[in-house]
């Protein structure tokens, strides 16, 4: 008993001494692996493959973009475009010819040189008539790619494309070697600062620092492990137990309070490109009628939906991120008004509402908002029945076959207003006016004029109430306070580790 007490007393004085000497900082400790330059990164979703040319999943880019692969240009943490594999580029006055100068002497992880023929190979892989790339439409303006010499490549466009540079900076356009591309899905080989080590299906992907990277000296991490943990409760347990050092995109806003209470971790709320929408099948049933969609828009109580995200979200009134300079606040286009919603629904011939399906993908925001929306639309008589889908089912049933009434999903790509101009997209929105307008946006290379057009495009989509515009997802970044250099915002899906280090 005495020993017990004495030990307790020693422990207490010891702790008090440490506190006095080092203050609060001493409590925020780095894990033992920090000394070896190792870091464990938690992710909610696992990438199906590791080839971003051929797979659209955000998780593929999060792991590979700027870590394993590089693109001609890169997107910086603020969303700007800076040189990547290309040291620079020139654009012809008519906006139709882009000449890229590549960094000389770059090598892939397998030792092969990276030259302009690979650039041509990659851009053809994305834009050729028979290309199967999910981002093909992003590169549809490419007419031809010409190799001038080993480090010079010329891209000719069919029409001026104001998004072209941004699109070649995306993870979609990761430059791949002609020899390794075929196996990059399982054994990715790029030119980036990290080499793929191993993948444990259902568990983790491990990368190691590349000795041949041209700025290898600036890379401070030696080993990077991406660990896939889907369940929010398991995520927080892994974090608090020290098994994971960071969740760049923490998926459980309701648990943020508990992470904040732990002094080891910093919680940083940033912005994402994720417009979360009540995606509506415009080509089916009552939703074909503009008045029905307007009624739904009037029935949305965004305050409650944002509260459902524990406040880590911003209300949106159209398909455009609020932190963008060209954003227009359209949340009052159809203000929350149950009486008006009911009247519109009655005018459309549904005085008692109607029944419809709400097919939810397995993500936190959809689950949370789904339950809230069932209640909100229930108040104007629209009875939604929730069906839970796994991602492959969702992609097949909702996205490809368009067999759905409503779904909830966050569109995380930048500049994704263009989806409203696409033929056969899953919303079934077919507006000649918008298609013509968007073609003008793409052709307009003058930034000021383009901004005006983009603002008008936001309003067209909002007026047509194509989808229920809910909120912009917040990026809840959680990381060990000793870890520095993580991106606070998410201008594009990426967990860029090139600038990350332990203090």
């Amino acid at each position, binding site marked *: 008993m005495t020993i017990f007490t004495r030990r307790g007393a020693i422990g207490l004085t010891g702790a008090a001494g440490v506190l006095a000497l080092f203050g609060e900082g001493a409590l925020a400790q780095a894990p033992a692996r920090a000394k070896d330059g190792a870091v464990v990164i938690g992710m909610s979703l696992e990438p199906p493959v590791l080839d971003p040319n051929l797979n659209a999943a955000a998780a593929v880019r999060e792991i590979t973009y700027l870590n394993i692969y590089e693109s001609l240009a890169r997107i910086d943490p603020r969303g700007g475009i800076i040189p990547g594999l290309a040291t620079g580029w020139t654009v012809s006055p008519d906006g139709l010819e882009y000449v890229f100068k590549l960094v000389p002497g770059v090598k892939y992880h397998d030792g092969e040189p990276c030259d302009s023929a690979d650039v041509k190979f990659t851009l053809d892989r994305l834009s050729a008539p028979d290309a199967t790339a999910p981002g093909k439409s992003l590169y549809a303006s490419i007419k031809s790619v010409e190799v001038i010499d080993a480090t010079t490549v010329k891209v000719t466009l069919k029409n001026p494309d104001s998004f072209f540079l941004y699109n070649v900076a995306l993870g979609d356009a990761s430059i791949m070697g002609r020899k390794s591309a075929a196996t990059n899905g399982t054994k990715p080989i790029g030119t980036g600062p990290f080499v793929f080590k191993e993948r444990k299906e259902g568990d983790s992907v491990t990368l190691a620092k590349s000795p041949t990277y041209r700025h290898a000296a600036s890379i401070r991490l030696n080993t990077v492990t991406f660990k896939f943990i889907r369940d929010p409760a398991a995520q927080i347990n892994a974090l608090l137990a020290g098994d994971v050092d960071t969740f760049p995109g923490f998926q*459980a806003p*309701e648990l943020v309070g508990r992470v904040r209470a732990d002094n080891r971790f910093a919680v940083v709320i940033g912005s994402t490109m994720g417009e979360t929408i009540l995606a509506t099948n415009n080509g089916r049933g009552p939703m074909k009628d503009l008045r029905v969609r307007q009624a739904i828009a009037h029935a949305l109580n965004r*305050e409650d939906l944002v509260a*459902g995200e524990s406040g880590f979200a911003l209300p949106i009134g159209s398909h455009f991120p609020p932190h963008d300079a060209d954003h227009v606040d359209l949340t009052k286009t159809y203000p929350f008004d149950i009486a008006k919603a009911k009247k519109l629904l009655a005018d459309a011939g549904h005085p008692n509402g109607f029944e419809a399906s709400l097919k939810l993908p397995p993500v936190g925001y959809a689950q949370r908002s789904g339950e809230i929306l069932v209640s909100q639309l*229930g108040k104007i008589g629209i009875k939604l029945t929730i069906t839970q889908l796994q991602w492959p089912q969702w992609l097949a049933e909702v996205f490809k076959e368009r067999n759905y009434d409503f779904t909830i999903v966050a569109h995380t790509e930048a500049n994704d207003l263009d989806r409203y101009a696409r033929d056969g997209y899953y919303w079934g929105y077919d507006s000649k006016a918008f298609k013509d307008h968007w073609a003008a946006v793409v052709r307009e290379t003058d930034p000021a004029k383009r901004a005006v057009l983009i603002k008008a495009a936001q309003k067209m989509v909002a007026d047509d109430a194509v989808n229920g515009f809910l909120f912009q997802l917040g990026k809840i970044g959680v990381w060990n306070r000793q870890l520095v250099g993580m991106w606070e915002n998410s201008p594009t899906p990426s967990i860029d580790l090139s600038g990350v280090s332990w203090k």
Partner: protein
Amino acid sequence: MKAFLGRARRHVGFLVGATLVAIVLATAILSTVWTPHPHDDLRMALKLKPADTTWWLGTDHRGRDVLSRIMVGAQTSIVVGLIAVSIGMAIGVALGAWAAARRGWVDELLSRFGDLVLSMPAVLLAILITSVFGASATNAILAIGIFNIPVFARVTRGAALTLWGRDFVRAAAALGLGPLTITWRHVLPNAAGVLLVQATIQFAVAILAEAGLSYLGLGAQPPVPSWGRMLYDAQTYLYDAPGLAIWPGLAIALTVLGLNMLGDGLRDLLDPRLRPLRVG
């Protein structure tokens, strides 16, 4: 009947079980006409309120009254239990009685098939069915019901086999009555007691299974209130609002306990061998 009630009055387990089950039933029925608050009125401004005089058990993470949701949740549990047991009984009893009457290869085939189904844990079977046919309360009920079929078949077969050996059944057969008539007139009425006991126990199993499936997201879909689903939602808030997990947990525990005690009590009271002892 009078003797039964007399004995029942002195059986503590039976009384406690019957009371608990009666309370749950009464709550479920009451909730169809009255709850303290609307059970599905979602108001984020009121989320996670502690228990007070307005919100007797507090509010959940969506600002809904917990007590009202538990009351309506009783409906879900009872409907699932009733239908799952009915499916199991209707098919299981028929198959069991058929096996006992026919014997031979029919008996052999049905029994082995029953073993096959029973060799898989009930919840695993239910997960299999709900993940193939989609998660919904209906599929959960079907899954649990299917698991109940061999359970009832086995119990019926056992009881019926004994009865087929008894003199009064043999006499009926000697008089030229067909197997169907004998089963209907003599076998089933005498097996009713055992089946009633089994039904009570399976009711409890069904409620637990539904709670388990809903907890895994494979049962009742929101916003249908289900105790299992409430537990799932509560686990995120265990630190901030432990009550959210305690109340539905308690509801499941007490209902299952009540049904099990009622089942045990019924078995004691209906067992003919114990009858003389208890009468004295």
